[in-house]
């Protein structure tokens, strides 16, 4: 079931560019090699990655965002059990208007992963079937995993303050 030779990132990039005519490039990163895709091209590239015979990335292992300066970097970690392949797709959207195409149609696993990053980062996924908060309550204000997030004074009746003992313990 598993092939000996596994494709590396440059080969995958070649395949993408040959078949979809979309400009993608490899990222310079000290650890995982990743493929940088423009936000508007994410959906077609993903579709190709899943449906291509040579790659068949049928599994979306993880999807998350990183708040890095002015941008949200988005990462999709894809797996192909058939070819024992692993790759990372990277894209970035500006913090001021974080909008990107949802990949729910490609992988159903994206549903909850996108809901989570909507919940915690406030990234808007276009065409997501059910985009609402998942971890936090519906009436929560703000997106906690953004770097500029200030924890609220309280939520409903619950006050968010340090106890007297804590204050005495560590002023």
């Amino acid at each position, binding site marked *: *079931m*598993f092939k000996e030779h596994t494709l590396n990132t440059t080969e995958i990039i070649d395949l993408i560019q040959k078949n979809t005519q979309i400009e993608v490039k490899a990222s310079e*990163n*000290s*650890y*995982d090699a*990743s493929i940088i895709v423009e936000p508007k091209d994410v959906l077609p590239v993903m579709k190709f990655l899943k449906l291509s015979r040579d790659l068949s990335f*049928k*599994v*979306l*292992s*993880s999807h*998350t*965002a*990183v*708040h*890095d300066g002015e941008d949200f*970097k988005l*990462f999709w*970690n894809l797996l192909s*059990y058939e070819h*024992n392949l*692993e790759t*990372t797709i990277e894209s970035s959207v500006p913090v001021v208007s974080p909008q990107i195409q949802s990949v729910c149609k490609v*992988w*159903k*696993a994206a*549903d*909850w*992963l996108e809901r*989570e990053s909507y919940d*915690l980062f406030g990234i808007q996924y276009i065409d997501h079937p059910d985009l609402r*908060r*998942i*971890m*936090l*309550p519906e009436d929560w204000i703000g997106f*906690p*995993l953004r770097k500029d997030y200030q924890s609220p004074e309280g939520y409903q009746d619950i006050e968010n303050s340090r106890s007297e003992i804590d204050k005495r313990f560590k002023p």
Partner: protein
Amino acid sequence: MTSELKTEHITINMGPQHPSTHGVIRFVIKTDGEIIHECDPDVGYLHRGIEKIAESVTWQGFVPFTDRVDYLASMNANWAYCMAVEEMLGTEVPERAEYIRVIAGELNRISSHLVAIGAADMDMGAITPFVQLLREREYINDLLEMICGARLTYNYYSIGGVNYDLPEGFSIKVMGFLDHFEVAVEQMHRLVTYNQIFINRFANVAAVSPEMAMDYNFVGPNLRGSGVKYDVRRNKPYSIYDKLDFEIPIGTASVGTLGDCYDRYFVRVEEIRESVKILRQCLQQIPEGEIQAKVKNAIKPPVGHKYIRTETPRGDTGYFIYSDGKTSPSRLKIRTGSFTGMSIIPELARNIFIADLVAVIGSLDIVAPELDR
């Protein structure tokens, strides 16, 4: 029944406090009598913001928090995180430490599967096997307590090795325990796993096809229950797993359809047997030597991102770490098996009985803190 008879769906809250939701999870179910029409899982009751905490603690200081991600398999969670940081730093872990890690991790895998199996049994109303299996787990807790001093949240693995060496006579004790354990667990299977009532409850319920399993990113025993032979330990070997001889059990549809609850359950049963095999090999092969590589006190991995996957009891757990070269991670994302397993529930819980929903949750082995993090 005539078609004019007007019926109404009942909306029921299953949870957050419910005996079979395995923690604080809420399911809003719409039922027509006993048959579920719609099920909407509402998660997040145990969201503790561990990913946010990671942004404010040191790289080493985050290890105890990984314990709390999945309290049933703290060792494996430690392992995944430590491995990710080691790969980022390029640290070589000493061989003895790797063996110890495998021993502790597999013991922990057994104990986690025991709870998974036992809880599934208890959801089906068989309470005795649950308690008996927890008794076996208690022995494992005793063993793990011997090596690290804690029973649940171990914090045993450190970046670059393990914190303590094995105590004297540990392998003899583990061997003695395994001799007892294999027989005792086999007996519990005769008590419940092979029981016809139990099989009827689990077989043919909520079958997940291999395609669907991959689409929903099922991992670990759930994925293998659907017949996909993928195990990170074998397909992307880490640590010393490439030196060890063990099988990857997959669902065989022995009593029902492929990927039904019984298959998922039975893969765990088989995995316990494989873990026992691994443990015996490790205890025979374990070399002498160092247990901790030299790691600086204040580590600052260079800028970049790393995604690492390890096979924990609840499947392939992914740690995505983004470092900006500071003393704490800039972003740490934990993608857990329960999370992806849970997202399939709205699809599976259609036109099944309420009692089947309990079976589905039990067979998916969902741990609420891991789901919410």
